[in-house]
Every structure is written in structure tokens, then in C-alpha cells.
């Protein structure tokens, strides 16, 4: 399972990189180049059977009576890109980065079975460029980093859980922030699994109807707001460790690409901008700055790994990113006595003007960081 997933990811990414490096300008992807796919209950008509490599756009219209699914497939049926559940009478635009080769477009009425297929030949000038080995190395190193973070987090989470289970309020409070650090550094990877994040990192206001509140923030409320540890909290602490072990086991299988690394870095800053700067994340413990630092460290790691490629494509961008990472780090250092400790000032002691300053610094970094993915695939 793992091998297959990684192969798909690598192939798609390689296609993306190849395709984009062939682009001459940003305006290559125009509506006029799109393939119109008319899906019906027993037909799948495509307006073109051959397209140049690069960004392929499918303008799909379902004229059938059932919901359908449209896919671009490799010859061995691995999925390049897909859209499920296109309702009758509705339209959808699907885009994919595709390198030269033979493909099929499949329409699956009722979203079942082999579907109706059309050939698609993607043309390109013979020799297809290999993915930059530097990017492969960056992904490999980032995968290792994500694994290390999970591995290092487990003992800290276990220490936190033990303190809760011992009923030791002070020790539990002390262990709380640090137990989250590795998670916060690699959150986009952790979140990519979808099912772990809602169990371990959901806040009370983020609960779905009927969802039981578990994880760090549930315990945070018990420790700081309710100031007591009961049987339920002890059980939840154990559950947190179990869920984090699941994360630790699966993190190596995460789909990671150079672009997902770059966008993950930006997403970490988004986390800071929406949850930490406002003080919403750790509203009872006020350890937001610990999470903040973790997010920035994780973003920086992804950036540093991608930097050799990005610096070649867009040196002005990496210069700006270096500057803004340094500025944000310097600002954060004001809130801890020792640059090696994660003993940050309690966020409820951080005034309005200071929060504004932090917010400005986050925006200053996040805006250029949003351009990193483009600099990597250029």
C-alpha cells in the first residue's frame, strides 16, 4: 500500500515539475486549451484526444442521470487526478499536471466500475526532464524530519499523560506545552491524515454535533479552567497517547511533495495568524507562543530544505524569506528568557500592541512564503 501511494505521488509530482518547467509563461493555461468532457450514462465524449504536456484542464459536464466521477489515469490505472460526485446537470473543472505519455480519461457513471474510457495522448518533446534530485532530497529529508518530530513527541506526550494520570496538576501543566511542540512543527503533515487531528487537537468550538471532545485542549481546559483531574481526564490522557502513536506510525506514509512542503510551510504561518496571534489556540493555558514557535520552526525547516532550488529560481524571494524568518525569530526571542528554552511568556500577558506587532511580523513572512511553491516548481 505504502509503496503504491508513494509511487503515485512521485510520478504526479515529477509530471508537475516537468510540465511547468516547459511552460514559457504564466498565461499558458487558458480556457481555450481545456478539454471538454461530456459525461453521460453510457458515453464519455472528449473534445480532444491529444494535448501538450503541462497543465491539463478538463471542463467536465455531466449530462447523465446519475452522479459521475471523472479521472485521468496512468496506463496502469493509477490515478493522476480525479473528481468524484459530479451531480447530474452540473459542471466541474479539473486540472492536473501531466507529463508526456499515454493516459485515459474515465467517466464512471454512478461512480462505479470500469467506466467509459477515452484515450488521451500527452505530447512533449521526447526527453522528459527528471525531477531535480535536490527536490527529491528535500522531500526525503522533510519526511525524516516529520518522523523525528513524531518520535520525539511521544515520550513528551507520555510524560504529560502520566502527570494527568497521577493527578499531578502542576506537573501536567508544565508538560502540556512541550508535549505539543513536535505536532505543531509538522501539523500540515499530521493533518493530511484527516482523522487524527480532530481527535488530538480540536478545540471545543471546533466540535461537530455528536463529536466527543478529546485531546490536548480538552485536558487543557480541565487543568487550567476546571483545575481538577477526574477519571475521565485520566482516560483521555491515555487516549491521547494512543492517538499520537497512530500518528507516529503513519507519518512516514504521508504524501509529501515539494509543493506540499512549501504550502505546508505557509499553512503553518496561517495557523499562527488565525489561531495563535489571537490567543484562541491555548485559551486556558496561554501557551500560544510555544505553539507559535513550533509552527515557525516547522515552516522554516520546510523552507530551508527547499531553499537551494527556490534560491536558484527566485533569489529575491529567498532573500526576503531569510530576512522575514530572522525578524520573526528575533521578535519571538523577546518573549523567552533563554533562546534555547521553550519557556515563553504566558500569552495573556502579551498586550494588544505586542500582539499587533507579532501579527504584522507573521503577515510579513506569510505573504512571501505563499510564493515559495511557485518558486520551487518554476
Amino acid at each position, binding site marked *: 500500500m505504502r509503496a503504491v501511494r508513494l509511487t503515485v505521488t512521485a510520478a504526479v509530482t515529477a509530471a508537475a515539475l516537468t510540465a*511547468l518547467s516547459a511552460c514559457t509563461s*504564466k*498565461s499558458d*493555461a*487558458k480556457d481555450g486549451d481545456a478539454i471538454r468532457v461530456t459525461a453521460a450514462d453510457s458515453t464519455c465524449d472528449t473534445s480532444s484526444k491529444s494535448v501538450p504536456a503541462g*497543465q491539463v484542464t478538463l471542463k467536465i459536464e455531466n449530462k447523465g442521470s446519475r452522479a459521475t466521477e471523472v479521472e485521468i489515469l496512468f496506463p496502469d490505472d493509477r490515478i493522476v487526478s480525479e473528481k468524484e460526485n459530479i451531480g447530474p446537470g452540473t459542471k466541474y473543472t479539473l*486540472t492536473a*499536471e501531466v507529463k508526456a505519455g499515454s493516459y485515459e480519461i474515465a467517466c464512471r457513471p454512478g461512480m462505479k466500475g470500469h467506466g467509459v474510457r477515452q484515450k488521451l495522448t500527452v505530447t512533449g518533446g521526447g526527453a522528459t526532464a527528471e525531477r531535480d534530485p535536490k527536490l527529491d532530497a528535500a522531500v526525503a529529508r522533510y519526511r525524516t524530519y516529520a518522523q523525528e518530530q513524531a518520535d520525539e513527541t511521544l515520550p513528551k506526550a507520555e510524560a504529560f499523560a502520566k502527570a494527568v494520570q497521577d493527578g499531578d496538576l502542576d506537573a501536567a501543566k508544565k508538560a502540556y506545552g512541550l508535549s505539543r511542540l513536535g505536532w505543531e512543527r509538522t501539523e500540515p503533515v499530521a493533518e493530511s491524515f484527516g482523522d487524527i487531528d480532530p481527535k488530538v487537537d480540536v478545540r471545543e468550538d471546533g466540535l461537530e454535533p455528536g463529536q466527543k471532545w478529546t485531546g490536548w485542549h480538552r485536558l487543557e481546559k480541565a487543568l487550567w479552567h476546571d483545575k481538577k483531574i477526574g477519571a475521565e481526564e485520566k482516560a483521555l490522557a491515555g487516549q491521547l497517547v494512543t492517538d499520537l502513536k497512530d500518528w507516529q506510525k503513519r507519518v512516514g506514509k504521508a504524501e509529501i511533495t515539494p*509543493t506540499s512542503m*512549501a*504550502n505546508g510551510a505557509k499553512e503553518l504561518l496561517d495557523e499562527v495568524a488565525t489561531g495563535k496571534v489571537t490567543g484562541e489556540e491555548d485559551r486556558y493555558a496561554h501557551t500560544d507562543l510555544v505553539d507559535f514557535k513550533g509552527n515557525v520552526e516547522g515552516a522554516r525547516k520546510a523552507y530551508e530544505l527547499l531553499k537551494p532550488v527556490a534560491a536558484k529560481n527566485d533569489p529575491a524571494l529567498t532573500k*526576503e524569506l531569510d530576512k*522575514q524568518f530572522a525578524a520573526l525569530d528575533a521578535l519571538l526571542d523577546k518573549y523567552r528568557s533563554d533562546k534555547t528554552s521553550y519557556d515563553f511568556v504566558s500569552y495573556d500577558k502579551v498586550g*494588544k500592541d505586542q500582539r*499587533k506587532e507579532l*501579527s*504584522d511580523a507573521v*503577515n*510579513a*513572512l*506569510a*505573504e*512571501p512564503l*505563499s*510564493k515559495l*511553491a*511557485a518558486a*520551487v*516548481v*518554476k
Partner: protein
Amino acid sequence: MTDTQGSNPSRRALIGWGGAGLALGAAVAGGAVAVAQSGDDRDPAAGEAGGAVDFHGAHQAGIATPVQDRLHFAAFDVKTDDREAFVQLLKDWTEAARRMTAGQPVGEGAYGGLPEAPPDDTGEALGLDPSRLTLTIGFGPSLFDRFGLKDRRPEALVDLPKFPGDNLERSRTGGDLCVQACADDPQVAVHAIRNLARIGFGKVAVRWSQLGFGKTSSTTPGAQTPRNLFGFKDGTRNIAGTETGRLDEHVWVGAGDGPAWMTGGSYLVARRIRMNIETWDRTSLQEQEDVFGRDKREGAPVGKAKEHDEPFLKAMKPDAHVRLSHPDSNGGITILRRGYSFTDGTDGLGRLDAGLFFLAYQRDVRKGFIPLQRKLAAHDALNEYIQHVGSAVFAIPPGVRDSGDWWGRTLFSKEA
């Protein structure tokens, strides 16, 4: 837009409310009815609804330009010490402003670019007319503490004194820079500031901003005189864009007024004036009319029939707003106003958070806003119903001459 000077008494340009701080009276003198027209050096077609106002000119657009319906005003703090980076930002802003005021998207647009990259333009103004968007930049006193600009700070760019009754919120006061976006469509004005702020991240940060509606002057023949949120017609005879003589006398900085880089510029005072709507609404009509020195129906000065009749100041109560702020009571002080009403929802006590966002342009703040506001703050009957909660002052540099020019060139380039 055609010029129908004098043909319609209700038609006038650039009538600021004046109510809260500076009265309609500030421009009541002068006799001739002010007439709306596009700016002194601007394409007359620019005044047409939805059209584009020329970005280039001797003076910045957005001052003498016929007042648009909507405002998005933003004050920024500078976040960089790198003069070169800041100058580059001003150039980038100029280019973006040039495009947006022409109705074009920023950079390479809102779509069609690399799928991996966020679009250059945020996209919410796609498909909308230029809507007479004007973007006007200003430099606050605190900017001159940076980039070695100390010697270039104009003497006229004074820090405003504390006026009696001021209750200024720091988070709505000051700023190293400002950009005034005026347009007939609020989305166009919001889009403009949003995109400039985005371009500026890392170099500048928004300190505060204000949305405004209910333009305070009429530029259409036969249109009603705008009323402020107290329900009064106000700001009767502001300086019109056509009155080049009065603009030169009262608004534009002349050669020799101060540093050469400001010639052709102006000075802007921005005040957020909260109105106590609920208590005003409980005030008797007589009291309301006495406070302003006008009648509510017609807007006529006390004892007169029509809004534009020459006021007889002594017929008004000594603390009447019009009487106190009239140029005849102030040695002829005249300023150009283009303020907007604002409503920012409610204030948590169920009161409308509303008032006037007052914008006044003048040749010298020391001879314009400050003496007028000193007097009003001390005596104006309106003070019972208003409070100044935000304040800022900016030097407005001259216009961007042509496509090679940029905002602030005269200040930052060595030649000036």
C-alpha cells in the same frame, strides 16, 4: 461631466460635513455657488459614473476630484528601516494604483497564472467599472523620524495639539502613511486598499482603517444636498474643483510655502468623529436647529429661506455650529472637506457606532484646521453630541506626473 456653473443652487462639489469639527460654515463665505466639476487638470469625462479618473496630474487625484460615494481610508505603520525597500514599495504601490484606478487588476491579474502561486490580484473587483477610483497617498509626521528624512519634514506638518473633549483611541490615531481610496463602488475602494496592504506586507502594516459612505457633496445637477447622520444638510459651500483660485489660495501648497518637494501638494487632517446618535434623536427639533444654526427641512441659515442664502451670523446662538465655524468668525479660514459618514455596527451597548469621518485638505494645518478646531472644541454646541475619537495628519505630496513618476519621488529622490 458638463459644467453648469451657477445654474443650480443645490449643486456643489466637495462639501464636507464640517458638522462635528468644522462647520459647513468654513466654506460658506465666498458668495458664488460652488459647482461640481472634475479636477482642475483632469479629463472632464472622468466625472462620469463608473469611469476612470486620471491618475496623473500636477496634484494628486482624490482631493479636488468630484467626491465619490464611498471611502476606504487606511493608515499604515512603516515596518522596515531599509530606505531602498521602502522606496521600492512606493514604486510598486504607484504601479498598482495606476492600474487599479484605470480599472485594471494588479500585476498579472486574478487568474490564469501559475496554479501553485496565489494570484497577484485578489479578484473581487473583476468585472466592476473603475468607479472613479482615486488613490491619494500621504506621509505622517512620524515618517520623518525614519530614513534620514528629519530635515525634510515640512514645518506645516505639525503634530495636532490636544483639543478639549478629544477622546482619541490610539488604535485609530496617527500613522506613518495613509492612503485614501474613494470610489463610487465600495467593493472597488476596499479592493484597492486590500491589495496595497498586501503588497506592503513586511514593509508596512495597516495601523487602522475606516470605511465611509454617504459622500458629503453632490456633484450631479439637481441632486439633493447630502445630509449628515444627524439629518442636517451641511457643508454648503465647499471649495469646488473648478475654483482654481480658491484651491491655490487655500488648498495647494505653493512654491515657497515650505520645502520644494511639497509644492503642489496639500495637508490632510483626518478625524474620526463619533456621533451620539441616540441622544441626538431624543433632542427637540428646536434644539437641533439651534445647535446647527440651520433649519432641518431646507437647511437655510437662521432667519433665511434657502440653504444658500447668505447667513446672518448674529441671528444665530453664540454657540451655533455655523456661526462659530464661519470664515467671517475665523479671519477667512477656508478648508476643503470631503468627509464621509460611517457606521461600524453597534458598540456593545446597543448604540450605533456611527459618525463622521472628517477629511480636510488645506494649504497649512496651522492656519486651517487647528485654529478652527480650537474654537469649535471650546464653544460649539454640537460638542454635546459628538466626540473626536481618532485623529491623524498627513503631508499629501504633489501628483504623479506621468507613467515614469511615482508617489513620493519629490521627497525621496535627491534632485528634489
